[in-house]
């Protein structure tokens, strides 16, 4: 592979990480370009990204990557100068080139040699350039010599403009250890550090010269920045093998006092805000930390209990008072620690959303549709455990919206809609939930064809279909075979594998809803919990065992008079708020010994819902509500139907966490597999079954 011979692992890692970020940035920005967001700031950002990739690739000796980035840079430069306008073809070319760059990076990462071919991308870029005027000579604008740098009029103008905009201009002179075998890298690092605080007006040697190996053991540069001298000093002096560092304000004496204008130029401003401090942590360590803090909380609770017992036993003892005080203090610290750890685990949805504009754009272009894609609330934070599983369902929904939701442009115009369709992906917090919606202004779902598909597949009878309201009919798209039917027969061409989306979201303890209006559009709403790590649960006892029912699954906990139970053909049912619910005894469901229930008096019951089913669970006793940490039963017992896991309570007792959806569907059977689609009524009438 084409590398510099003396490349070390650490430098490669830095290169890969930096390139990854830049590629991601390019990916987003190029798509933005196409959607009319062409601003000088954006073009500069793109140009700079390509330029940096070119430079650092050259430095590690990656010829192909450097060459390709250079070709892209030339195109960006023309865009920047305004000698070329953006069209879809150009964007295609740029994205193809970007994909090739990504492939090169991946090749490097996996240390394989896939022989990624850059010739196609290069020839596309060349063709683009030939069509629209020649590229300026490589790096011409950076050809500075030391004398020129100090006296050149162009530099002077730039400095004056920067000062006028209220920036500080510093002359940085750095001397690198003569024994360093890495002086080129150090020069580059100094340049990079400086640019992280502002814009380098010019430097000797230039970045290009460094890349070409012309660097000496010293570097001079002019920097326009908002930062103070001390900050700059701190940043640059972090570069290793530095012998001497001099930073002076303004380098020539004769400059005219300039009236400070009020406007700040875009690119400079953009660079300023980008200093963020972060540390990368191995995810496994974070999980382990989370687990241990969980244990700490449990132990804290136990200690608090013991301390209370001691207090009642030795009331008034000085040591006991002291113990109590320190228990309270420990408790506070532990709670704070827990909150902080939870926060660390939170990630912005942006991580998932970043790839979407590109995906939607590609899909739209392939389908010959015009689509504006809008993302809102990407800064919304969600627990990592949820982030990991949210991407696939969203990809699914977005694909559906592009492929089947938005109509082709001519069709849209024909019915008086704007030619360009709109897809909106938005996210926000609502109480203890995260709401994510995917909406389009397309043709909407057609209840009639969904009904037809369901009838054809034998999921509902024709009579039943005729009785369904439009809303009920639309909800049928979540039933497995309905969506498959549509895929194969193209009845309406909508709803590819939406049952998978539903299953995935429900696995995260979330729900999916859909609303749609013909020719107005469709909206999918996902409701997700903030975190999977801690859940609130209702504790009950059954057969002498503590069980926890996630509060999300609890409709109501109640005492029901035993004589209200009715038996219909051997099955127990109960009237609850004008609804007939089937009655299930938790102990019996578990296959444990038959409980001895009173024939009169009250029964402790929990009305639960899981999936689309509702039922009345009879338990031995209700024990109250508690926050619990869900633990897996381990591989050995995993897959035990109806049990989601276990949790350890403050007193060390174990409670079983119930999986209500599975429990109910095992008990009542999977209604979707039946001929009669009985459950449909329940969704809207809030009942499991209607009788008579």
């Amino acid at each position, binding site marked *: 592979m084409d590398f510099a011979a003396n490349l070390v692992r650490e430098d490669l890692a830095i290169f890969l990480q930096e390139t990854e970020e830049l590629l991601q940035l390019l990916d987003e920005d190029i798509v933005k370009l196409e959607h009319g967001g062409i601003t000088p700031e954006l073009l500069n950002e793109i140009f700079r990204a390509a330029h940096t990739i070119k430079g650092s690739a050259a430095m590690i000796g990656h010829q192909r990557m450097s060459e390709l980035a250079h070709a892209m840079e030339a195109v960006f430069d023309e865009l920047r100068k305004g000698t070329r306008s953006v069209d879809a073809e150009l964007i295609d070319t740029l994205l193809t080139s970007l994909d090739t760059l990504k492939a090169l990076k991946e090749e490097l990462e996996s240390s394989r040699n896939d022989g990624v071919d850059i010739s196609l991308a290069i020839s596309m870029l060349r063709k683009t350039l030939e069509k629209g005027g020649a590229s300026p000579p490589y790096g011409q604008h950076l050809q500075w010599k030391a004398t020129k740098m100090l006296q050149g009029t162009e530099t002077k103008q730039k400095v004056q403009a920067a000062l006028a905009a209220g920036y500080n201009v510093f002359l940085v002179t750095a001397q690198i250890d003569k024994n360093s075998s890495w002086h080129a890298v150090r020069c580059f690092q100094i340049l990079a550090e400086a640019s992280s605080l502002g814009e380098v007006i010019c430097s000797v040697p230039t970045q290009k010269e460094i890349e070409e190996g012309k660097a000496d053991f010293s570097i001079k540069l002019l920097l326009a920045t908002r930062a103070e001298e001390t900050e700059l000093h701190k940043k640059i002096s972090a570069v290793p093998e530095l012998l001497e560092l001099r930073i002076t304000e303004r380098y020539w004496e004769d400059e005219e006092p300039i009236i400070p204008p009020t406007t700040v130029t875009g690119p400079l401003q953009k660079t300023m805000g980008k200093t963020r401090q972060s540390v990368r942590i191995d995810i496994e360590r974070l999980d382990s930390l989370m687990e241990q803090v969980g244990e700490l909380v449990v132990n804290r609770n136990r200690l608090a209990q013991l301390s209370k017992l001691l207090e009642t036993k030795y009331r008034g003892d000085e040591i006991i008072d002291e113990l109590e005080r320190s228990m309270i203090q420990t408790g506070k610290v532990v709670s704070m620690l827990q909150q902080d750890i939870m926060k660390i685990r939170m990630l912005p949805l942006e991580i998932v959303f970043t790839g979407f504009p590109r995906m939607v754009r590609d899909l739209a272009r392939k389908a010959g549709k015009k689509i504006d894609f809008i993302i809102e609330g990407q800064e919304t934070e969600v627990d990592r455990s949820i982030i990991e599983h949210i991407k696939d369902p969203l990809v699914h929904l977005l694909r559906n919206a592009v492929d089947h939701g938005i109509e082709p442009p001519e069709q849209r115009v024909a019915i008086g809609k704007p030619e360009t369709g709109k897809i909106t992906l938005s996210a926000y917090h609502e109480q203890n939930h995260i709401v994510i919606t995917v909406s389009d202004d397309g043709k909407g779902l057609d209840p009639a064809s969904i009904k037809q598909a369901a009838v054809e597949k034998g999921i509902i009878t024709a009579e039943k279909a005729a009785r369904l309201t439009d809303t009920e009919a639309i909800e049928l798209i979540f039933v497995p075979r309905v969506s498959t039917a549509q895929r194969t027969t193209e009845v309406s061409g909508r709803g590819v594998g939406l049952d998978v989306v539903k299953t995935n979201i429900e696995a995260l303890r979330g729900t999916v809803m859909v609303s749609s209006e013909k020719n107005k559009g469709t909206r999918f709403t996902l409701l997700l919990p903030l975190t999977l790590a801690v859940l609130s649960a209702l504790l009950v006892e059954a057969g002498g065992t503590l069980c926890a029912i996630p509060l999300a699954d609890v409709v109501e906990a109640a005492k029901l008079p035993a004589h209200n139970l009715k038996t219909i053909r*051997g*099955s127990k049912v109960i009237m609850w708020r004008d609804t007939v619910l*089937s009655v299930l005894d938790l102990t019996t469901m*578990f296959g444990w010994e038959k409980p001895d229930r009173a024939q009169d008096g009250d029964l402790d019951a929990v009305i639960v819902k899981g999936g689309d089913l509702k039922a009345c669970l009879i338990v031995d006793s209700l024990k109250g509500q508690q926050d619990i940490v869900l633990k897996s*039963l*381990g591989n050995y017992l995993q897959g*035990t139907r*109806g*049990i989601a896991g276990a949790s350890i309570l403050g007193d060390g007792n*174990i409670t079983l966490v119930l999986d209500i959806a599975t429990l109910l569907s095992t008990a009542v059977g999977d209604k979707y597999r039946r001929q009669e689609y009985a459950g449909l009524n329940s969704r809207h009438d809030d009942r499991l079954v209607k009788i008579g």
Partner: protein
Amino acid sequence: MPTNGPTNEKHLVLFTIAGEKYAVDINSVYEIIRMQPVTRIPKAPFFVEGIINLRGKVVPIVDMRKRLGLGDIEQTKESRIMVVDSNGESVGIIVDAVTEVLRIPADAVEPPSNIIITTASDYMLGIAKRDGDMIVLLDLNRVLSKEDALAPVMAGKKTEQATSPAAAKTKEEEKLKATATVIEAG
């Protein structure tokens, strides 16, 4: 099973179940604890007693008597839970007593004799002889494997016990299905 040290000895933990002597390699034993209350798990395999809280970790507990088809549990003061490694996971096994830790030369272990090839011999690594005693070396990865968790270990008299919970489960499901049908019919 790994051997301990260059001397090619086996370092074993001995325990008894229903009067018979068994052993496992000491490297696969995490700890030995006294009996404690076990939280039962509905619809778990019949030989799984339930789970315990071992310093904040949820550990499944297997009754070795039931697993090996050696009759019902008679817990005594000698009964112990041995927390062992099975396929990389901690599992507690209930044994009648843990008797000793010993080293024996590796060549004192013979493969299970041809005469006793039954389903049970699949779970043996070999038989060690000592002063006329027979010690069965258990293969923990297999005896505790999840895959054949529902298969009875020993053919013969205990098969009935092995299958009855499964049968009960089926019955239960049928009953519930009947319930469902009624609901629908209504």
